[in-house]
């Protein structure tokens, strides 16, 4: 199962060839390789080097000056360049406190100098002149640096002179502090290095606890979900668990609400549901939401309603318990109605997350089934459809469960109260619920087929199940996509008062951030002209008169992929994900 993720899509595509529409093929195509990167303690320097390099090359300055500038501009190279073009180098440097001096200024020092801080006469050798030209004794400088580092100001240690805006040269700080406090010098270096994470909106610490020590860098869209190399999947924007298609705000409100109301809901959302016939509590022990009681009665786990014993799943799809029906006749008090409304959504949300957990156990049993099948002497060789189907099930189940809190807020009357009229809301709600219902029906079907003991079936029957699973995988994927389109365009796209961004749908599941390759480092530091160090070669070429309007400056090797990806976000994809426990097994 090691290389399973890689194989998955290609083999999926192969096996689907000729079976399914072209559209799905196109949508598999983009986002090869991942645009998010894991930054470990070791690769932190490498990660920032490309930004540093761009600034150093363009302005012909040394690394620490580039760092000072970048810290001032929160590592936004484009913004820094824009200011440079608009206001010029002098302005840029003055604002950021960078002073460049010629060597001659630093040269000779008189035999003794009066330090204005300790008011002592100090021999010239014990004095340091900062880039800005201010001269103080090493002792006072060191004390000043120590105070500032301990105050957490390592990134912007200013000169001691009154109204001097200059940022102290990091090499001087490092050298002077190291002489007295080697540990503190290390701390200073770490602060500088970590500025790349702390002050950069495209890089964030992985929120794992205990902390894995990694940070994640995304390329162009902060509204996405990522998986750290430690296995944690999270929303890059709010650092909570991945929750798409809920927006961050909805998710925050929802989790809070679930906590607050848990006591009321606890006794309702128990682990069992009464059988509609014999009223005995029934525990759900499988992933599928069609449950049969020991008395023989089958019922829908979602609504508790009885279903026919010889049901077909197309009947279940016509069964509309996913819709919320406002109970107008009873004229229940508002509070009660609100509670019921919440319970409706919460129960469905919970049912799907519970199914999700149960289905996670399927992984093991499925693996066993596959190995049994593989041992059989049969014409069937490729069982990737089983695992593909299972992963499709996880992803779709996840979208489904988070679509309930989303619906709770979008069609409720607090968060989106002024965004649409009642009529509009009703229309949109129907539209959305139709899609949700379709997805739900197909997810349940998929779940049912995957739970079949197909390892004991005849080959014909296995072939039949294979067809069903493959078809349903494609259908649910498309339904998820459609649902995201509906959410992004019809529901969230027309908002006037609030902005709700959701992480796009990822057909393949949450993107795993890839480790920065360290060989990159050597390429850049050697400053050889090679394709990977596009930035810095660009800086040079631009000067020699090549038209610079090609946008090449803001493009890295991988960013050519960014554009198409960005466009593809337009039609509503969102991210979906597997919880770490599912991924761990890979």
């Amino acid at each position, binding site marked *: 199962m090691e290389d399973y993720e890689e194989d998955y899509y290609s083999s999926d595509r192969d096996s689907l060839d000729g079976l399914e529409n072209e559209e799905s093929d196109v949508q598999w195509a983009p986002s090869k390789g991942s645009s998010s990167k894991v930054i470990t303690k070791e690769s932190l320097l490498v990660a920032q080097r490309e930004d540093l390099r761009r600034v150093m090359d363009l302005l012909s300055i040394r690394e620490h000056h580039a760092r000072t500038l970048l810290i001032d501009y929160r590592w936004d190279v484009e913004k820094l360049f824009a200011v440079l073009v608009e206001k010029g180098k002098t302005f840029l440097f003055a604002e950021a406190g960078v002073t460049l001096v010629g060597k001659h200024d630093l040269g000779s020092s008189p035999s003794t100098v009066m330090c204005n801080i300790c*008011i002592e006469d100090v021999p010239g050798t014990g004095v340091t002149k900062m880039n800005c030209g201010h001269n103080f004794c090493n002792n006072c400088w060191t004390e000043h640096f120590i105070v500032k580092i301990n105050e957490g100001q390592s990134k912007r240690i200013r000169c001691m002179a009154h*109204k001097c805006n200059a940022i102290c040269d990091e090499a001087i700080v490092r050298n002077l502090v190291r002489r007295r406090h080697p540990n503190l010098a290390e701390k200073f270096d770490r602060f500088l290095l970590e500025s790349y994470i702390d002050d950069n909106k495209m890089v964030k610490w992985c929120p794992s606890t205990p902390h894995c020590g990694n940070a994640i860098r995304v390329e162009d869209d902060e509204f996405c979900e990522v998986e750290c190399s430690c296995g944690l999947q999270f929303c890059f924007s709010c650092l909570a668990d991945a929750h798409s298609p809920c927006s961050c705000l909805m998710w925050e409100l929802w989790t809070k609400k679930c906590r607050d109301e848990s006591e009321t809901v606890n006794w309702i959302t128990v682990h069992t549901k009464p059988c509609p016939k014999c009223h005995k509590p029934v525990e759900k022990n499988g992933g599928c939401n069609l449950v049969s009681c020991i008395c023989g009665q089958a019922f829908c786990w979602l609504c508790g309603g009885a279903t026919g014993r010889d049901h077909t799943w197309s009947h279940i799809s016509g069964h509309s318990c996913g819709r919320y029906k406002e109970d107008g006749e009873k004229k229940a008090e508002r509070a009660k109605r609100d509670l019921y409304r919440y319970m409706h959504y919460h129960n469905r949300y919970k049912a799907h997350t519970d199914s999700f957990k149960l289905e996670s156990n399927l992984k093991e049993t499925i693996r066993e089934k596959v190995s049994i099948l593989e041992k059989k002497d049969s014409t069937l060789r490729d069982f990737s459809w089983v695992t593909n189907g299972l992963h499709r099930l996880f992803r779709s189940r996840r979208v489904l469960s988070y679509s309930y809190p989303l619906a709770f807020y979008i069609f409720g009357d607090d968060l989106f109260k002024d965004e649409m009229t009642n009529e509009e809301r009703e229309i949109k709600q129907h539209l959305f619920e139709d899609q949700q219902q379709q997805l739900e029906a197909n997810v349940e079907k998929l779940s049912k087929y995957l739970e079949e003991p197909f390892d004991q079936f005849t080959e014909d029957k296995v072939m039949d199940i294979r067809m069903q699973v493959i078809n349903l995988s494609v259908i649910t994927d498309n339904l998820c996509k459609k649902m995201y389109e509906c959410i992004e365009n019809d529901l969230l796209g027309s908002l006037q008062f609030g902005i709700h961004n959701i992480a796009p749908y990822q057909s393949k599941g949450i993107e795993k951030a890839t480790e920065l390759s360290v060989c990159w480092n050597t390429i850049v530091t050697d400053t050889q002209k090679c394709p990977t160090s596009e930035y810095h070669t660009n800086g040079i070429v631009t000067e020699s008169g090549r038209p610079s309007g090609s946008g090449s400056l803001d493009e890295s090797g991988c960013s050519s992929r960014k554009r198409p990806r960005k466009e593809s976000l337009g039609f509503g994809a969102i991210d979906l994900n597997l919880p770490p426990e599912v991924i761990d097994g890979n």
Partner: protein
Amino acid sequence: MQASRARLFKEYKEVQREKAADPDIQLVCDDSNIFKWTALIKGPSETPFEGGVFQLAFSVPEQYPLQPPQTGEICLDILKNAWSPAWTLQSVCRAIIALMAHPEPDSPLNCDSGNLLRSGDIRGYQSMARMYTRLAAMPKKG
């Protein structure tokens, strides 16, 4: 000897030497504690503070001069984030005098006087400042 102590000692000597140069400021160090200072500042002439003598107590931190001296509530940037170790107690007093002559209506400690100034009521501001000066910084009559 601690750096702060050495520096304060230098400042003390400087104050003694320059006493005559700045008659508006009288800086006195506590007899037993070089980290406690008292300043007497004369209100600058042609301001509502004229004729008043303002007493300031300075408490000097151990990290001085890397950290600013503590005094009463004065909304003065150099006593906060714009502090530079190149300042001395003497120069802080000078800055306070400058603040009295040129109040900063956008960063007032006393909101009322700030509002008066911002609304252009110079007379109102002056009369209020004058009142406080009389109440707090002038010898009581009879």
